[in-house]
């Protein structure tokens, strides 16, 4: 009886956004009379950071400081349509819609500024600190605040913009499955080290080392939140969770968190994360989305690590101590698993 260490790997990709039905989202951006901007959405922040990611995209596009943008969501009377927060579509679809709306608003802002400075709008640029100036002549400047006041009270312009981003619906061929399921994909490779106790069947995850490629990371801390939390969920799926422990037998279902198991704060492991950015041609600033794919490699990587540790394949989830022990016992009797022809 002993503890055995093992190491497993998985490499995966993940489609960004919904691949069926057409996948639109809309956004509205407008300035108040003193040059502060509101983004109106009906998209949902479930914790993934929708409000924060769209705020950064809007500020970047407008060329104003982040403090001057506030994201208001989700009210069906004021926020235009969004399909919803699922399918890793938030950053890519909603981000693009916000970018389009912010671009339109910026266009009006620059026209209004040009009128005040009596120059061509094309000669102007934003400094990202709340000011607009003539390219190459920073002293010929006007604040966004003064532009907004002028637009509202003198020029009669609305500094506002509408945006929509639509990935048209994907045809699916009944015979071949030919389709355009997504416009871009995120990628990951995860290496997991585990320890398996052959007496109790317990599996301890010792360390994760991962590389994720997710297009432009709009906010590396929010990306980290998704990757750390997502790989925890992957570990949980692999080793702990199910509402039907004896599936397809539907009995013995857990009713609360004493019976539905997930790894607690004492069951987590160090996780080395490296992020790569290969920008997507149609992503906002090249962004894809980290939300869903980060959980996926952990399930097989852990299963493969268990094989590496104790030489048994467990092809049924979750990999409970009971399943590990049964597999170890079965291995004693069975022939080698290779089916070479």
């Amino acid at each position: 009886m002993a503890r055995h260490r093992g190491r497993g790997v998985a490499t995966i990709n993940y489609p960004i956004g919904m691949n069926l039905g057409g996948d639109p989202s809309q956004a509205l951006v407008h300035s108040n009379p003193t040059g502060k901007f509101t983004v109106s959405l009906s998209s949902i922040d479930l914790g993934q950071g929708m409000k924060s990611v769209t705020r950064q995209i809007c500020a970047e596009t407008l060329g104003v400081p982040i403090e001057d943008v506030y994201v208001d969501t989700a009210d069906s009377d004021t926020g235009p349509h969004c399909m919803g927060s699922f399918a890793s579509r938030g950053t890519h679809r909603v981000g693009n819609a916000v970018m389009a709306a912010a671009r339109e608003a910026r266009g009006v802002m620059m026209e209004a500024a040009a009128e005040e400075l009596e120059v061509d709008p094309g000669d102007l640029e934003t400094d990202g600190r709340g000011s607009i100036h003539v390219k190459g002549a920073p002293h010929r400047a006007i604040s966004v605040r003064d532009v907004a006041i002028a637009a509202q009270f003198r020029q009669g312009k609305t500094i506002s913009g509408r945006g929509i981003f639509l990935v048209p619906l994907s045809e699916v061929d009944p015979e071949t499955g030919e389709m355009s399921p997504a416009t871009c994909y995120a990628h990951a490779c995860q290496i997991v080290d585990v320890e398996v106790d052959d007496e109790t069947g317990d599996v301890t995850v010792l360390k994760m080392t991962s590389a994720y490629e997710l297009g432009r990371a709009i906010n590396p801390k929010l990306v980290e939140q998704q990757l750390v939390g997502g790989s925890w969920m992957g570990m949980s799926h692999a080793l702990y969770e199910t509402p039907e422990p004896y599936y397809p037998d539907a009995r013995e279902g857990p009713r609360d968190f004493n019976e539905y198991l997930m790894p607690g704060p004492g069951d987590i492991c160090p996780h080395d994360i490296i992020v790569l950015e290969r920008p997507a041609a149609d992503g906002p600033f090249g962004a894809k989305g980290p939300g869903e794919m980060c959980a996926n490699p952990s399930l097989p990587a852990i299963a493969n690590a268990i094989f590496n540790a104790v030489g048994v394949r467990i092809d049924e989830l979750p990999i409970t101590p009971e399943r590990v022990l049964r597999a170890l016992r079965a291995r004693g009797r069975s022939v080698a698993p290779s089916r070479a022809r």
Partner: protein
Amino acid sequence: MLEMRKDIFADERDDDLREVGRPTQRQDILGHVTGTSAYYDDHHFANLLHLKVLRSPHPHARIRSIDDAAAARAPGVKRIIRGADVPVNLNTLLSLIQFGKDDEPSLATETVRYRGEPILAVVATSERAARQALELVRISYDPLPAVFDVEDALKPGAVSVNPVYPKNTFDYHRKYDHQKLRFGDVEAAFAKADMVFEERYQMSPIEHAPTETNGSIAVPDTNGRFTVYTSTQALFFSLDTSAKINAMPSNQLHFIGGTVGGGFGGKVDTLTEPLAILAARLTGAPVRYRLSRHEEMQFGSPRGAERIYIKDGVMRDGRIVARKVRAYFDSGAYTRLSSYAVVKCVAHIPGPYTIPNVHGDVYCVFTNRTPATAMRGFGVTALDFALECQMDKDAVAIGMDPLEFRVLNAYRDGDMKAHRRVAKNCALIECAQVAAERAHWPLRDEFRRMSSRKGGGEARAEAVADRTLKPAPPGAPRTPASSSQRAAYERPPADAKSPASPARDMPSPAAPPPSGSTHGVRRFSSIFGTRRR
């Protein structure tokens, strides 16, 4: 803990952005750490009523009779709602995008098809009063045989779960009980392969377990509207579904949400809003319907279980030459979103690898269990588990390093994928190299030198040439839209590709919307609206 490798793919990016790329604090963080972020239940109403549903104790049964007289007289009870009170008591979520047939009642009337299916709702002055009244309802059932295993459900003579899909499978394209993927010739490739492996994988059902359970509060507003505070993760999906079930114009509903205590896919199904609105209409008072933790765990939809068979043909030099996948999604008693997951799963086969011969058959199967729904990685998580375990077995069997085996077979820019789109913007090889370096996983030099941007295309782009289906003749008439399947799901002639010019991996143009109703219900969707037709 997190390192950005800006040096990789640096030539494809300008890193001169001001706000994007910065670790800016979350906009909502102050609210979170002070407990002042307002979730749906943080709206307080003095005369709030509470809705609880009675759930079936049987996985499959005919309802013989319902006696709710005593419950109606119980203290605090304001109203009992039965299936007959629901204006449109049959719906399917994806009817909003014209995909699938209405198959699920809000409250079961004649038959219950899973343990926990709602039959009746009590609206009372407190949750406790509602629960106590539910104890007084007497229902007599004739239990029916039930089916729980996806493959049992497909056998001849199996119990029929869902009368809208009597053969226990979702209809694809009005002619198949599954979605197909066909690329190259797997059988010929298996015959030539050095080794062939076939394995079976079983993904468990999984509960989303958000710390905030599903719920909503519907409040009668002035001017005949209803304000709905909701935990939904898809505001207009839920609004339009609620409008449909309640036969109300969508502008009579004002949904407020957006700050949600976790979802992970479990808050798309609009489990509570339609009945909360109906109850608010029937009582004239604000009504909250929130799932208990037990309900959330057993009767809120889970991630569906999937059973997956994979057969690989592999050469001794490490190339995978054929992959055949057969998968069964356990949808539970009703469709919800599993029909869609099947399509996403088909698109994901054979994983991020370039394999010249691929064959997939994926089924959406009905069983007598809680209907399944989306969850983080929907349609892909289970397949990735199966594929990546299979990759490991393949590598071990041919005596190759498992990571080198993956790098060797990884897809690269310019390769043809099995769903007949050219791969671009690939980065699997680079992820593998970077992770291997950090974890000191020994990769040989030739694998360290490989790149997603080199060595793809050419022969690897032509794998499909011998098997492309005959394209529809130009100008051929479109099949008219009818019955269960959206017209857009068919292949318009404009989209037909000749084998010589494989399609780029770009969105295909939108097909015209179907003419008229697709399944007998009113078209109401705010998603496409009526303006387009």
